[in-house]
């Protein structure tokens, strides 16, 4: 038997969990690009180091982003990945597909690229992994013809994403899919033509379970919530208890506000103390559901650590009704982005900017009132700024 070219990678082939190496080898059968990618990866495995050069700026006409340029640092060994750019294709909201659409994508990609993809990238895009500079425009044109468009990259609005929400979840308090799609369509220009100080990400989760990790991974997190009492179906409560759920221990004792009382027969919730964490509802979907008045909490600033340390988004609007055409939401987004664009340094995320200039400056700029819901607790340091109008000015004599 012929000695393998990829003895290290071979060890990752097969097995119980599907292997990316099997997919790469599958693609390598038809695509020299994929074959050289395997080869270069084997080299990386041997040398424990990456073999891509820094950066690369390539693109398609009329767009400032959507493609990640990449060049091999050993093209002499792997000429087919000398250039190996990635296209970020905006996914259908909620990552729903008819197979026809996926097949179209495959066809385009077999024609123009390596035949390798990521379904999906961390931001949510369909990642078409690796093609050459001269294929970019044509590939884009073919994608367009099939109804697909590029997603965001660079200092732009990044491809918004949403949890499955009303598509398949009983807890959706907002239409995460429609909100996300509406935003995506409204801000095509902002997605395709970077003109922000840095990236800006929006993610929409239809309830506080936050199945798109919006609070951690987006600059603006839109999370469904409710006002009013959690409706209780006591019959179903009893059924859960009968089925073996220890309601006191598993539900009441884990309620963060301890606002539930169960007497062995009936469940009572002191709703004014409930902070809508979802735990009880998660455990008893048949018995409990979100309260009657639905809307979204908006949070700002989430991001990964570079530069100032990671941030989790924080509340800026405790409750906003969200209904098409989402005017209130979009007005606020534009105000926020305008202020950020005017005020930020280059490569400064909105969260970092607010950290630098203070919430008070931000709130005033975008016209939001200060509310206790915005903080875990008020400040502990006495370094309080007053506005000029707070201060009695000296009479000029």
């Amino acid at each position, binding site marked *: 038997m012929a000695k393998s070219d990829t003895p290290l990678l071979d060890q990752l082939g097969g097995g119980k969990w599907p292997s990316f190496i099997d997919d790469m080898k599958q693609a390598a059968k038809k695509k020299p690009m994929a074959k050289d990618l395997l080869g270069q990866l084997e080299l990386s495995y041997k040398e424990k180091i*990456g073999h891509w050069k820094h950066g690369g700026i390539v693109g398609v006409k009329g767009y400032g982003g959507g493609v990640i340029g990449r060049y091999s640092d050993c093209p002499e060994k792997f000429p087919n990945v000398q250039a190996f750019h990635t296209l970020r294709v905006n996914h259908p909201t909620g990552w729903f597909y008819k197979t026809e659409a996926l097949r179209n994508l495959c*066809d385009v990609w077999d024609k123009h690229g390596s035949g390798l993809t990521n379904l999906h990238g961390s931001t949510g895009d369909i990642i078409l992994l690796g093609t050459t500079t001269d294929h970019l425009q044509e590939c884009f044109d073919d994608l367009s013809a099939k109804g697909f468009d590029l997603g965001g990259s660079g200092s732009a609005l990044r491809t918004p994403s949403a949890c499955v929400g009303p598509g398949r979840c009983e807890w959706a308090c907002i239409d995460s899919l429609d909100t996300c799609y509406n935003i995506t369509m409204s801000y095509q220009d902002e997605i395709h033509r970077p003109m922000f100080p840095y990236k800006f990400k929006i993610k929409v989760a239809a309830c506080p379970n936050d199945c798109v990790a919006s609070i951690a991974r987006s600059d603006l997190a839109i999370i469904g919530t409710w006002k009013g009492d959690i409706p209780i179906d006591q019959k179903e409560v009893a059924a859960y208890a009968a089925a073996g759920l220890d309601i006191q221990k598993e539900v009441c004792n884990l309620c963060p506000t301890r606002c539930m009382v169960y007497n062995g027969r009936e469940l009572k919730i002191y709703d004014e103390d409930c902070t809508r964490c979802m735990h009880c509802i998660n455990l008893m979907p048949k018995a409990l559901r979100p309260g009657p008045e639905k809307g979204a909490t908006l949070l700002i600033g989430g991001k990964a650590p570079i530069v100032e340390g990671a941030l989790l988004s924080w509340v800026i609007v405790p409750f906003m009704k969200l209904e098409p055409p989402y005017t209130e939401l979009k007005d606020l987004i534009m105000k926020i982005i305008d202020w950020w664009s005017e005020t930020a340094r280059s490569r400064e995320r909105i969260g970092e900017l607010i950290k630098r200039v203070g919430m008070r400056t931000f709130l005033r700029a975008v016209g939001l009132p200060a509310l206790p819901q915005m903080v875990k607790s008020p400040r502990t340091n006495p370094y309080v700024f007053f506005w000029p109008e707070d201060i009695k000015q000296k009479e000029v004599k």
Partner: protein
Amino acid sequence: MPTDIGPPDFKTMLPPMIQRNYGKWRYHEILEPGLMVHVGETGEALYTVRAGSPRLLSTDHIREICDIAEKYCNGYLRFTSRNNIEFLIEDKAKVAPLLAELKAKKYPVGGIGHAISNIVHTQGWVHCHTPATDASGPVKALMEEIYEYFVTMKLPNHVRIALACCLNMCGAVHCSDIAILGIHRTVPKPDNTRIPNLCEIPTTVASCPTGAIRGDSKTKTVSVNNDKCMYCGNCYTVCPAMPIADADNDGISIWVGGKVSNARSKPMFSKLAIPYLPNNPPLWPETVAAVKNIIEVYASNARKHERVGEWIERVGWERFFNLTGIPFTDKHIDDFDMATETFRSSTQFKWR
């Protein structure tokens, strides 16, 4: 060609039953690992089978998935926010045959409920220019070993694992139950012959979180204060002439206890568990063993519904290090700008 057409309208991608029950689901039940049903107000029931995916998919593999979806789901499927495949079945009778075919084709079915789901991860050596480790490789090596927890539901709660190949953290590692993070450990050496032509000096200086870089705007060069550099690589991101990768010293760190859901506890960041493990391709045995150990200690110590972070918060970090046998070092103690917030300003602690 028209531009700015945006993505296809998701509504055109929804199975008819979803269109009918859109926003009107009543409840769901998890029937067995990887299988759940959602019942709408109409009484209709939609079955979902969740299958693992390597995320890095060949077009042929995608076509195979399409074949399956066409056979059992009228051609409708979706992917999850953690890159699993979800087959959406309207016809209950097709569930069992689908499961059988997936089994035959070796698709792992699971990831629902109190399980480990797919590992959110990044590009690594496959496509990125700043990685300190590979992404798909360690993920595959690890999933192979913890496969059991994907296809069953025997953990106290779900465990979300993520991997990022550098500190940019393209993924959810800063808020994951368990996170695997590639780290560099070598101070970048500025190549001041190239910097004047390749790099913006102010940008490079501003890129450093610890202010380790000094720039000279006249000569257009920079210098690094080695003592202040913690190898984040952000200078390299903005300035190609600041190479940081180093095969001998790059590697992996392990983080635990993060979460993003608001269920019970508030969202939390992941915290450092193991500062450094060597890059040992192709199987990363140290990393795999370390993660497995944490999962198993969690599995046998946490209470039902407790996420990893919630368990640790309850028993205390003293106990976590004690139970897992992971050594605590000065690297675990924060020394960045909000470090004092993490210091134990209390006499309340456990002896171990």
